[in-house]
């Protein structure tokens, strides 16, 4: 890299770029985390308030056992797959945005 002195007035180093960057990424992370946490933290509540339902038997398993011990893993894979696709797309957007801004500036 030829490493010119960084130009602090360009888009990348602006306050607004950093803010949008962090806000977008955090929003995505929080949305995924919320889905996960509602399911995870809801499970003990279901056990607590609906013990009858959770003790009902499905193929020998109690419903609660089946949900926690087996089905929870695929559920989490779905969330993480979605997150990774979205966050890689987000990064590509950002790179494109910066490239566009830099291109525009050179032309001026």
């Amino acid at each position, binding site marked *: 890299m030829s490493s010119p002195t960084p130009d602090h007035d360009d888009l*990348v180093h602006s306050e607004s770029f*950093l803010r949008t960057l962090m806000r977008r990424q955090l929003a995505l992370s929080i949305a995924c985390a919320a889905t996960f946490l509602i399911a995870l933290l809801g499970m*003990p509540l279901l056990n607590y308030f609906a013990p009858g339902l959770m003790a009902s038997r499905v193929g*020998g398993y109690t419903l*609660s*056992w089946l949900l926690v011990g087996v089905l929870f893993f695929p559920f989490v894979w779905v*969330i*993480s797959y979605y997150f*990774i696709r979205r966050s890689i797309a987000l990064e590509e957007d950002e790179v494109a945005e910066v490239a566009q801004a830099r291109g525009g500036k050179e032309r001026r």
Partner: protein
Amino acid sequence: MTTVPTLALLGGVDPWIFAFSFVTVVVTIWMGFRSAKTSKTASDFFVAGRSVSVGWNASAISGEYLSAASFMGVAGMVMSSGYDALWYPVCYACGYLFLLLFIAGPLRRFGAYTIPDFAEGRFDSPLFRKIAVCFVLFIGFFYTMPQMKGAGVTLAYIFPGMPYWVGVVLVGAVITFNVALGGMKGITLVQAFQYWMKMFAISVPVFVLMAVFGTYGNHLAETAAPGSPAVNVAEIERKTLVDKAPADEAWVSPFGPLTTKAAKAAGLTPEQTKPYSLLYTYSLIIALVCGTAGLPHILVRFYTNPDGVAAKRTTMWVMILIGVFYVFPPVFGVLGRNLLPELYAATGAKGTDKIVLELPRIINERYGIWGSILSGITCAGAFAAFMSTFSGLLVSMTGALAHDVYGRILRPRSSAEDRLKAFKISAIVVGGVAIVLGAQVEQLQINFMVGQAFAIAAASYFPLLFMSVWWRGMTMKGAATGMLGGGLAALACTTLINVSDLKVVDLTAFWAANPLIRILCEQPAIWTVPLAIVLMIVISKATSSDIPADIRMKMLVLHAPEKLGLKQEYIQEHQAGMGH
């Protein structure tokens, strides 16, 4: 048994089991030595030259993560405590999601060798590095104890005459030696190989056992009340439970023996104990989920990914690899309850923690030596489990000692050769301490001890990483106070529980009088994690003039896509600013 000690030691050894275990150990050591030849420079030892492909890295992370707790402890705890123990495998696997969502990408982009490097880089504070190093060691030692117990239990199973501590010393010495010679480069290969070995060793015996003795579901169905309509009746030959085993109903239901123990000891009625159980459950979940996102020896591996996208892909694969794995250990616990209930009566090295090793052997009753062969395979898996995790921990703790304490604090001007020597000596010191600690904990459950290491990580590293990555207002003083406050509180509570459970100090009467305090000490995460975060916010606000001047650049490096090439720019500017 004869009176000659060596013969007594070998009395009752099953040749198949011995053979499989022996081969595992020899192959592991051989791989260590082989890679020792190819890794020469200091950076090879620390982060494996930073060039590991996604597939290898994901297998290696999983291999390192699936410790004795996952391989032996989960099954043992499901057998002894039932449903409540399921939270462990679920949160061990799902905690990774938190790591992926909030921490993996930014950390990788920031580009530092270790967590102490991150702590120093983010806050420009060498003092903070020292504090972070202490926690690498605290959490590390807590996490090595259950691995050592796994080693002791497995060797006591293979050699029925051998005392628990001999197994701990033997295995500990072998791995310490291996790490001192091989470093991490070797370990990436070995770890990846060991993941697949563990997966094979836990799944194949499960399928065979289910084919012979009935499926997972059918065995669970045995716990239903007699005559209940929901049970699909399949013939399962169930052995009579011993007196010490929990009753079916309590075992298979949520809020069973594990989470109600403290309240029961206080003599509360079943209705009164339920809120306590709920509290215990939530605190456990918080500790495990946040703790996974803060385990130092796991985090170090994110730096071996070539870029941020690869780091994310790696995490995805890790979640799949460990998620699939964690379906199996509870099956051993369920089948073990019906087929091998004798273990409930024993304690320490002979108790339920060895169910994974011993259960396949009952196939011998029907099909000759096949049970021994399968038992040999699970023993080999157990060796892979505690050897790989112990090596990983040893590398990260030794790295902290050699790279940070020696290379940065004690002798900053030491040569590369000196540092390599320091690495080897540190490995021996850390290994020695781990062996001594491991020999003390025969009576504690493997899984329980790992939960404690997670609780400390959850209250120290997790808040540090999470807040430093996402909040620019954080100052060094805030971060250090929060991490020390939360982490030391968790450390004190778990240590107190361990010394009282090991009967070093008798607190039975006190715990019985205060079940709430017992629960909050046994599972401290529910108050220590918020404590750490609140401390961080309050102190950072109070010292807001100390926010690093180039904070915007730091945040940009943490969050902007790597393709923009900001990291290099940041480092150049930073060094220019420091006057180097």
